[in-house]
């Protein structure tokens, strides 16, 4: 029944798209078949795979960089309440600024190429991860801390063996949210500065008025985003199993 509903939605969408596209020129709105044909064209020449590779690599680097820097930072800020309270006002001002607004600065600082895109993806993952990690540490059950204190563990052991594992499931949720926002900003970052990647493919196709390639690029971005989301869900499940949360 659910499968029926899902296929129905997708087929109706594709059908409507095909129908509406009949009223427009292919430059304005290509139909689904034309888009698939466009993707095939890109795939055959090998251009598509290059762009996908570049995007995935760029995405992985920036995201992992964000995780490696932000999670430890969040752990420390969450653990030392005073530090979080001191830095909180500044973060509340920076947080509402869209990562894309940083773009002119990123160009000025890092020049054109990989760096501004990586910087923007990093920024877009930074806040969700930081807030989730700080929140996770601050909400660790005081009962756990009391028990550990009772058994006489040192500060370091308390942090590594109690605080981090207790906060872990909530941090994972933050990481998953950050994957979503980072993937969205990957395309934005590549559209603005890069000379390669799926975002660049979309902008470049506009220059050639190849609307089928534009939409093909969008479709691929969506499908890859879905794949990454599913992969993260799978990862979260297996971690939760290991953590006794199921």
């Amino acid at each position: 029944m659910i499968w029926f509903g899902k296929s129905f939605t997708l087929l109706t969408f594709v059908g409507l798209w095909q129908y509406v596209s009949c009223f427009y020129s292919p430059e304005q709105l290509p139909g689904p078949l034309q888009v698939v044909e466009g993707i095939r064209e890109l795939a055959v020449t090998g251009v598509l795979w290059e762009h996908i590779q570049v995007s995935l690599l760029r995405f992985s680097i920036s995201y992992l960089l964000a995780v490696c820097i932000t999670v430890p930072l969040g752990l420390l800020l969450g653990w030392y309440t005073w530090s979080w309270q001191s830095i909180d006002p500044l973060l509340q001002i920076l947080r509402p600024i869209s990562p894309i607004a940083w773009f002119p600065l990123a160009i000025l600082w890092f020049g054109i190429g990989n760096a501004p895109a990586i910087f923007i993806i990093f920024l877009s993952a930074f806040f969700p991860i930081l807030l989730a990690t700080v929140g996770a540490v601050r909400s660790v059950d005081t009962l756990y801390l009391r028990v550990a204190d009772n058994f006489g563990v040192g500060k370091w052991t308390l942090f590594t063996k109690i605080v981090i594992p207790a906060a872990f499931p909530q941090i994972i949720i933050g990481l998953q949210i950050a994957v979503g926002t980072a993937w969205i900003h990957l395309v934005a970052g590549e559209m603005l500065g890069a000379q390669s990647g799926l975002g660049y493919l979309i902008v470049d196709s506009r220059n050639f008025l190849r609307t089928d390639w534009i939409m093909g690029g969008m479709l691929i971005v969506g499908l890859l985003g879905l794949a990454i989301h599913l992969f993260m869900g799978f990862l979260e499940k297996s971690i939760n199993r290991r953590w006794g949360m199921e």
Partner: protein
Amino acid sequence: MKKVRIENISKSFISNDNVLQEVLADINLTIENGEFLCLLGPSGCGKTTLMNLIAGFEQPTRGRVIIDNQTVLRPHSKHITIFQDYGLFPWRTVLDNVVFGLEAKGMQKKEARDIASEYLELVGLTAAAKQFPKQLSGGMKQRVSIARALAVEPDILLMDEPFGALDAFTRYRLQDEILRIWQEKKPTIVFVTHDIDEAVYLGKKVVIMSPNPGQIKTILPINLPRPADRSSEEFAAYRREIFRAFAMVQEKNPEYMI
């Protein structure tokens, strides 16, 4: 031999609406080595606070707690508290939860595991060693936390309404178990409860407390064979005596009108 001396303890908090509240007033109590002592009273009588003071989780406003001739300033790994909510670590298996206290003492993993297994056997949970706390019933969880406490061979066990969240049958079974363990290992046990039957069944001494501010009303030594017969005359006599003590509390602060 005196194990714990509580000398003129008072404890006050500043409540949320900025009023100074006295939770405990002038508590004096000594606990003998190897004694099973129950702190019994209605909610708000400060029994948990008193236990937290003995455990070193909190400091008294006035007076002091002395254990083995030393003033208690912080928690100690020889004085282990067992909480009503178990305090098990959900990310560790049952065995690793018991191992935790031993590791904290700096014991090697292998040796810690062997000892932990012994104590799991003592509480009848060998089969559950590889499971996670989430998979256990409340009674089993409390057994794990008892095993974890016993594994470090504490000389004082502080139990804060440990069976309060369990159903009656599980509670009876665990009461028998804790009695058996006490007779076998002879730790000093301070057991906080609001259940009169539980206090009579377990305690060699029942400290009856009254609220506003928390004070010790009377101390009642219990002379029953262990395990006691819950339906016996003597058991009923002790219950009656405790009821009478609480009735006196209520005569001073009538909470009802006829």
